[in-house]
């Protein structure tokens, strides 16, 4: 494990962690505020990727330059947030806030199943590959290994930007404070006039946009296939649970932990690479049952 291998594993780990964080961020936000673990988050991620590939393909065919792929990513993410995130919360989740946790989870699982098929009906089953955004930024060579600027620099920057952006938004802006208040105590928030329904709708849409953005940003680095949603969501569960539910900063640390763990495993013992995220999750929860940053809930009698 000489130095270059160590650094290479580090770089790969960082770019992978950035992507996993962006997706887990939306999941953490939604759970933190609404106490709902949204299994359909995986489908929103996948549809964000498919939408980006279709839009980019369409515009490039019209002769637009590859640079347009970036704004298109944001557009597809917002589309996913508005067209899918909004209706899911407004039509479905709103009716089940009082219902037990298992039923809320299952509603999101049912939505996941519906969206997986819908995605297959619209985009079919063959793999798509649209890397023009990635190619537009070219490569960079470190220690003899050529990395794409997109994966090594852009993704981590976007991840960090989203982390601090969301922190600033929640702590400094009015809407952000409303969201935090509703998270703390929904009844109390409502009693002082906060329209919790609108806050939940807004939070879910932001969460869905983040999921779509995760998919959009991932699309140039991978071929888009059915089932990518299922793979990513189970990984996001590992990140969210390791971080401590609803902990945005925790999700960043957990994503880094899991990203680095996985990429070092590929260098040391490839067989175990798929196993590492869940091993980390179990080990962390063994030591801190409420997750890295979660706060233990004391039972009063």
């Amino acid at each position, binding site marked *: 494990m000489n130095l270059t291998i160590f650094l*290479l594993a580090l770089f*790969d780990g960082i770019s992978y962690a950035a992507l996993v964080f962006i997706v887990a961020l939306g999941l953490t936000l939604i759970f933190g505020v609404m106490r709902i673990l949204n299994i359909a988050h995986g489908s929103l991620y996948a549809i964000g990727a498919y939408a980006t590939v279709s839009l980019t393909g369409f515009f490039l065919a019209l002769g637009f330059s590859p640079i347009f792929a970036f704004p298109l990513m944001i557009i597809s993410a917002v589309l996913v947030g508005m067209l899918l995130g909004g209706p899911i919360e407004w039509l479905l989740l709103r009716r089940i806030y009082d219902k037990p946790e298992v039923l809320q989870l299952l509603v999101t699982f049912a939505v996941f199943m519906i969206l997986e098929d819908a995605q297959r009906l619209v985009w079919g089953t*063959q793999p798509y590959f649209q890397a023009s955004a990635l190619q537009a930024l070219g490569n960079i060579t470190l220690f003899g290994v*050529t990395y794409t600027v997109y994966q090594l620099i852009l993704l981590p920057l976007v991840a960090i930007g989203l982390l601090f952006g969301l922190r600033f938004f929640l702590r400094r802006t009015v809407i952000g404070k409303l969201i935090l208040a509703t998270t703390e105590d929904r009844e109390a928030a409502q009693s002082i006039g906060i329209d919790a329904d609108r806050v939940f709708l807004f939070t879910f849409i932001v969460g869905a946009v983040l999921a779509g953005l995760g998919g959009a940003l991932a699309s140039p680095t*991978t071929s888009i296939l059915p089932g990518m949603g299922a793979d990513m969501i189970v990984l996001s569960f590992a990140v969210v649970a390791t971080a401590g539910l609803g902990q945005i900063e925790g999700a960043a640390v957990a994503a880094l932990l899991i990203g680095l763990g996985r990429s070092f495993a590929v260098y040391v013992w490839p067989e175990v690479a*798929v196993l590492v995220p869940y091993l980390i999750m179990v080990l962390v929860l063994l030591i801190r049952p409420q997750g890295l940053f979660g706060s233990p809930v004391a039972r009063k009698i």
Partner: protein
Amino acid sequence: MMKLLTTSALCAVLPLAAMAADKPETLKIGMTTFLTGPASVFGVPARDAMDIFVANLNAEGGINGVPIEVTYIDEGAGAEALTSEFRRVAQSGGAEIMLASISSGNCQTIAPLAEDLQVPNLMWDCGTQRIFEENEYDYVFRTQGNATSEMLAAVAYLLKTNPDFKTIAVVNQDYAWGRDSWDIFHTALEVMKPDVEVVGEFFPKFGSPDFSTEISRLQALRPDVILSTSWGGDLDTFVQQSFQRGLMNTSTFVLPLAESSLERLGPSLPAGHIVGARGDHYFLHPERRDDADFQSFMEQYKEATGDIPVYSVFHASQAFAAMQAAYEKAIADNGVDWPSEEQLLAAFEGLEFQGLGRPLYLREDNQGVESQLMGTSAQTGDYPFATLENIMIFDGDGLLPPIGETSIEWIKGLDASFVDTLQVETYDN
């Protein structure tokens, strides 16, 4: 318990029916192929080709006047759904003969099932050699070569064109095909070029969408040669991501199954890399491209799908030709309207048939003997994608172990001179 009684009663009657079966209205066939998932880029062309073969034959009245009807089973639905669907088509679906399958894993699962259900089954595309080497089958035949012949052809071509490479790494899919093909390739290299060092072995999961970590590792290792027997969506992603990050400039790729991805890869497959086709399958086949049947099929396929055919289409043509030849031979040999199951099975012994490539025949162990075509990629500009040059077609006989001997044991007994013993024709393009 009623069911038990009826079945045993049937057994008593069976020998009488062996004499001749009456002509069915239609010959029902079941065929498994990948209609979903990353491998669909591979399985769908085979289905489209099969529709054309069936239509052409039915237009001429089918086999002895019996039209053919195919039921497709999607291998993409996973092993469980596949086995229950296979059983449904073979039993209640009334299929007389089955063509299964593409994935080596599925072939290993279905072969014993077909034997159990006593339905003839042609392994039309899967390559793992272990099926016939590990046990005997009466109902299962393979109408194409296997991993041994394909890997030996790839090693021979590599040694002939790059005799002085020192290091090699492998990136194969993590399932039966990926593992078995590497065992054979690796064993052959050890005996034919012992000084080669294996610097990296990667087995990403089947259908993996992203190879960036493996590519970074390969760039650090800088192997002279990178072998990958992956195919379909996996191969496309791996080659495109490698090309994107310049890995194809520093290492020579050996891609024994890349013929199936030439058109999709377009400019992403630069010149100078070794391409195989799991048999003598190439849409510009030097010995067959001027034949009438070859050209007419190419037009029909282009018209139907808009693409050029890949080797899964050639393998489908071979399986279809073998089935047709077996039925016609059984009808002729026994002078009946329609052969019974025993008569059909007997017809497969040593059967000779020809699809879109060279003629083939079945050995006693039901293994097909298929010539192997290898070439080097070139961006000539005639097509928007890479075509092959310095094409070598190896005769199939020399590439298979004697019957009853396992490939690995047989290869361990070979040495560097083996490459020269092979019968090969070379063409510029």
